């Protein structure tokens, strides 16, 4: 019978979760009040809440990215798509009757519909024309920023709409709305992939496209769906980012978010080679990245080295996950089974 420890460490999420916990511990050691959460005016505040809120856009983008990566693809255009969503929404809202709730709603719907169209474009290039995903989405990654600039006229469009501000800054039931939106989309994605057969078919296409085709799987539709889903998720993240700052910045909104999203997916244990994917892993990966971003100032790393620090940590996590590196480590460790509490093995 295997001990609890060895069963846990065999779990796919063991190492990412361990890394996240370690990071949180480092923070508590540096600042003992790190975990403190206080209730003020019916809203929760604190580092943990901030981490969750800052992680929301990354998680949204990473969820879409997970499905795309599972089909053996990659979507580099998500940052640009997020910028376009923010630009469209802000430009629509700006002007007469700027504060109206209905205008904010229409703006969001419009922005998401445009993102859906952009996703159709990406999916068309990849699944119909057969262009390599990295090239196909590179097109929109560069052109998309230009599109967003076109929409905003090259200006940073600031707006003042209380309804729109709620997406990124509002609270519901003491929690930031952004967290709830991200969790809702997480739940929705999980249901969409695991309650239906989408997840299994996505994995089949990712593992062996030709065998899937011969088994009658409509691989084209499946891949297309993944890119559309990814773009809509990116759009939602873009709205959240624009709402946070009450402005559309075509140049800076969602910059490099594609890299964070890809990283979150990989840290979560989904292989870039496609196939099996883990949404829970992506969640942990996204939380890890935002916790890392919060850790850097907290433990007093000078801000000019923060990219370097991030790179080192990411390399460490990837090493921890690599079976080869773990095997090399295990050889060096003393043999002998880990201590298990009585009853834990049952």
């Amino acid at each position: 019978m295997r001990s609890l420890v060895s069963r846990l460490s065999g779990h796919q999420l063991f190492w990412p979760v361990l890394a996240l916990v370690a990071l949180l511990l480092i923070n508590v050691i540096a600042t003992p009040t790190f975990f403190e959460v206080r209730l003020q005016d019916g809203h929760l505040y604190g580092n943990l809440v901030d981490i969750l809120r800052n992680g929301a856009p990354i998680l949204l983008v990473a969820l879409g990215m997970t499905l795309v990566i599972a089909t053996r693809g990659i979507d580099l255009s998500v940052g640009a798509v997020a910028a376009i969503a923010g630009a469209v929404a802000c430009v629509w809202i700006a002007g007469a009757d700027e504060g109206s709730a209905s205008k904010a709603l229409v703006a969001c719907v419009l922005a998401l519909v445009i993102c859906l169209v952009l996703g159709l474009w990406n999916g068309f290039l990849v699944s119909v024309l057969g262009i390599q995903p990295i090239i196909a989405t590179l097109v929109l990654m560069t052109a998309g920023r230009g599109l967003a600039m076109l929409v905003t006229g090259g200006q940073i469009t600031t707006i003042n709409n209380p309804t729109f501000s709620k997406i990124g800054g509002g609270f519901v039931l003491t929690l930031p709305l952004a967290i709830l939106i991200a969790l809702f989309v997480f739940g929705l994605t999980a249901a969409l992939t695991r309650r239906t057969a989408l997840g299994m078919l996505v994995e089949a296409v990712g593992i062996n496209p030709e065998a899937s085709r011969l088994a009658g799987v409509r691989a084209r539709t499946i891949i297309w769906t993944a890119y559309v889903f990814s773009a809509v998720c990116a759009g939602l993240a873009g709205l959240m980012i624009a709402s946070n700052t009450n402005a559309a910045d075509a140049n800076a909104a969602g910059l490099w978010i594609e890299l964070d999203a890809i990283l979150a997916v990989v840290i979560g244990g989904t292989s870039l080679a496609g196939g099996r994917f883990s949404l829970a892993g992506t969640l942990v990966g996204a939380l890890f990245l935002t916790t890392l971003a919060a850790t850097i100032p907290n433990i007093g790393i000078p801000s000019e080295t923060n990219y370097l620090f991030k790179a080192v940590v990411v390399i460490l996590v990837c090493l921890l996950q690599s079976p080869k590196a773990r095997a090399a480590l295990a050889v060096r460790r003393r043999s002998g089974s880990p201590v298990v509490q009585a009853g834990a093995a049952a």
Partner: protein
Amino acid sequence: MTQMDLTQPDAAAVRREPVIEMRDISIAFGGVPALSGVDLRLYAGEVHALMGENGAGKSTMIKALTGVYTIDSGTIVIGGEEHQFSSPAESQAAGISTVYQEVNLVPNLTVAENMLLGREPRRWGGIDAKAMNRMAAATLERLGINIDPASELGTHPIAVQQLVAIARAVDVDARVLILDEPTSSLDADEVEKLFAVMRTLREHGTAIVFVSHFLDQVYAIADRMTILRNGTLVGELMVADTSQLELVKLMIGRELEVLDRIDREVSASDGRASETPVMKALGLGRKRALESFDLELYDGEVIGIAGLLGSGRTELARLLFGADTADEGELEIRSTRRKLRTPRHAIDHKIAFSSENRRAEGVIEDLTVGDNMLLALQASRGWLRPIPASMRARLVQEYIEALDIRPADPNALMRNLSGGNQQKVLLARWLITSPEVLILDEPTRGIDIGAKAQIQQLVAELARKGMAVVFISAELEEVLRLSDRLVVMRDRRMIDERVNDDLSVSGLLEIIAGEASAEPTEEESFA
């Protein structure tokens, strides 16, 4: 010189000290024993066949010898010295070389470069190309392989590449050469060439381990054999003293009852069960793949397709399934004209196709047995209508039992199953869609005799129940045994179609060979 002349490989060889003796080898994976107490003795100057069904432990044994797996218990004695291999490099250093089924050389380097890769002769700090070609030429000549060492490897057929791989292997001063399924992609001429090289090596005192599914080839080349079953040793015998029947009995461990039963039951298919064909091809063809042909399939009938590799038999199957689209001719399904543009269309019309290329076009390795089985059904339901859990469990259980799939675990990963069991899962995938036409391209290739028998039996049974079956196989005996009607292909053309009335293998061979019999036959057993 010892009392033995090394160039004389004969029964006397057995009395010498073995070059390698593996004693009482045991290996277990996660508590499941893969080998328990197996011995293997190899003598200089012999070809030793390692026999057994899939999953008997042949590859585990080879991997133990080549240092890929570490043994749990037992000893490996080489030249009187005990060795512990913990990596393939150590095994190679001890003089053990392996050539695998897939050639793993670099096609865009020259033959000589491939042979001396990693140990090129040096001169002035660079590679001495002349010396390299000279050394390679010497080795090739010694083995009787007549090719230019300076030519690019990729320009040679696979068979020659395989010979180069062997030349490379023996060049490293191999005392033991392991050939794992070396003949599976070769035709008869090429097999003969390979055997010639093997005989040369044997004369030079190399011990050769030969693994093959083709019994005829084993009898043509091997001197002795070790037979495994379920990870245990069942016998070490001289090939000359053992009949094929005895060998098969030892390998499958029962009184051939399965094979006997097939001979009685199979071919008991009642032939067509309908007046109108379920499928009818009229002048169907595809440029550069297959000349146009006519074909009618009837319910309850097995059509066997015979022909050599590359004769168009696979192309025919792919056209009938829409895996490739036809660019001429028409297809009628139940008297209605249809155009099959994708496999999906074919599946919607109750046609199923199991590809000859199990790995690339069949299994989804990282999904479970259950998911693999239900893939086609799920695909045709669409992703919005998942198969309910209860129905899922019932179907998977039913087919695991009906087809005797092992391990009988719906959650086992497909990659961990043996070839025969993977094939059964793929069959289940199609049977679950309850097709009316079942197209099987080489369903029994590379799988053990037990599984082969079960699949043949299944095909006969399905036809009896009214399914139209297209059965393609390189093994003519199998085609003849199962088919009601025969279609013969050659040079991407259908050259004959006839009722199967007690045609003999040699009769069929004559048809295949036709008037232009210059073509190489595909397998040793044909020759």
